[in-house]
């Protein structure tokens, strides 16, 4: 891997096989906390993707200066600094977006997935593949958060992507869908326990899907072998 980075493999790995939430089971704290709506999930996902790209780039750039014994505190310093700078810069220059996302930004510091990528990928790879890995991991995280948030929002409040226009701008108001009109609301799914339930069911669904795919692959291989023989 170190000599010829395969970007396709990196992206596939990050998006599906080794998805932060559904593959590695990391970052469950922010996952459960912010996914009461699909829009919130998307916001957290975007902010995390941005920081992951930057932090992986910084760690990869500095990887030869960091001695293995002090690497973890060094990564923590890098990540915390980046997040704080992003937080301040957004507050100063992207204030409208900050009012929506501001809540999530400090949470990124404690997202173990960011430190995880620095440790397992960026510290052993050049800058470009590390940035790709960071962005892909972030995208996988964003997709997972939107999935969990979407399911919770539809079941909990009967809407999908409510208030998306305040996050992405008025052009995206078409995303806001009322799935069930006059829905009374199902409190359980809005509250944190609903997050656990939805993550659990989605995980189970992914397992079933993976097993089906595996069986299909084995059957195909067997058929091919039989034909050859």
């Amino acid at each position, binding site marked *: 891997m170190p000599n010829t980075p395969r970007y396709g493999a990196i992206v596939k790995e990050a998006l599906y096989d080794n998805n932060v939430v559904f593959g590695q089971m990391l970052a469950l704290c922010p996952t459960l906390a912010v996914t009461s709506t699909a829009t919130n999930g998307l916001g957290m996902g975007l902010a995390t993707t941005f920081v992951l790209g930057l932090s992986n780039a910084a760690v990869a750039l500095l990887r030869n200066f960091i*001695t293995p*014994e002090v690497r973890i505190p060094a990564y923590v310093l890098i990540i915390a600094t980046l997040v*704080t700078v992003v937080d301040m810069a957004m*507050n*100063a220059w992207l204030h409208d977006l900050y009012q929506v996302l501001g809540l999530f930004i400090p949470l990124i510091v404690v997202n173990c997935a960011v430190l995880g990528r620095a440790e397992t990928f960026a510290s052993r790879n050049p800058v470009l593949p590390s940035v790709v890995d960071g962005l892909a991991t972030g995208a996988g995280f964003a997709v997972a958060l939107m999935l969990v948030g979407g399911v919770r929002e539809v079941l909990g409040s009967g809407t999908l992507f409510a208030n998306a226009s305040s996050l992405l701008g008025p052009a995206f108001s078409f995303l806001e869908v009322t799935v069930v009109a006059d829905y009374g*609301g199902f409190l359980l799914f*809005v509250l944190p326990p609903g997050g656990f339930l939805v993550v659990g069911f989605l995980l189970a669904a992914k397992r079933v899907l993976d097993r089906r795919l595996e069986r299909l692959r084995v059957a195909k291989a067997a058929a091919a072998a039989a034909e050859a023989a």
Partner: protein
Amino acid sequence: MKTGPWIHAVVLGGFAMATAALLSVADIGTRQEIALRKAEDLKASLAQVLPADLYDNDVVGEALTLSDGERDVTVFRATKGGALAGVAYEMVGRGYAGDIRVILGVAPDGTLLGVRTVAHKETPGLGDKIEVAKSPWITRFSGLGLGNPPVERWKVKKDGGEFDQFSGATITPRAVVGAIRDGLAFYDANRARFTEAR
């Protein structure tokens, strides 16, 4: 070249100094902008509870600080031609997930010009209906005062009062109604101070 354990200290110390320097630069570079944004936010939330055509003074510059017994309250006074036209100040209610800050605009006769939620951490989808962006609930209070409805009716319906709670969230609106009630009492208690010469 053989290196001793000191190299780790040098590396980590170097990182600490570099990141601290970066943070200082970022802080210096953004501090002014952030202060500007904060002032804009304050102006925007004041504008929602104090209609601009009501006053001709520098509301933010002429703010005064009073104590309500527990905390200091910054009171923004709006005057027109020197006469008091209204005051605005923040009140804090104890919500389901921490403090809820609301800003009240009060006319000289003690009725509400408007109320807005400034900051809260209530459950999204449930308690956040106190934001005007999510629900018109909070606009219900405009024009009301401590006599209308009577003080003992300044509660949510569940507590025998006048105001709707949300399905699934009672604590949040209870806190907001309570904060507004306290805010009106605060106005009555300090009425003399507001009209007092600067």
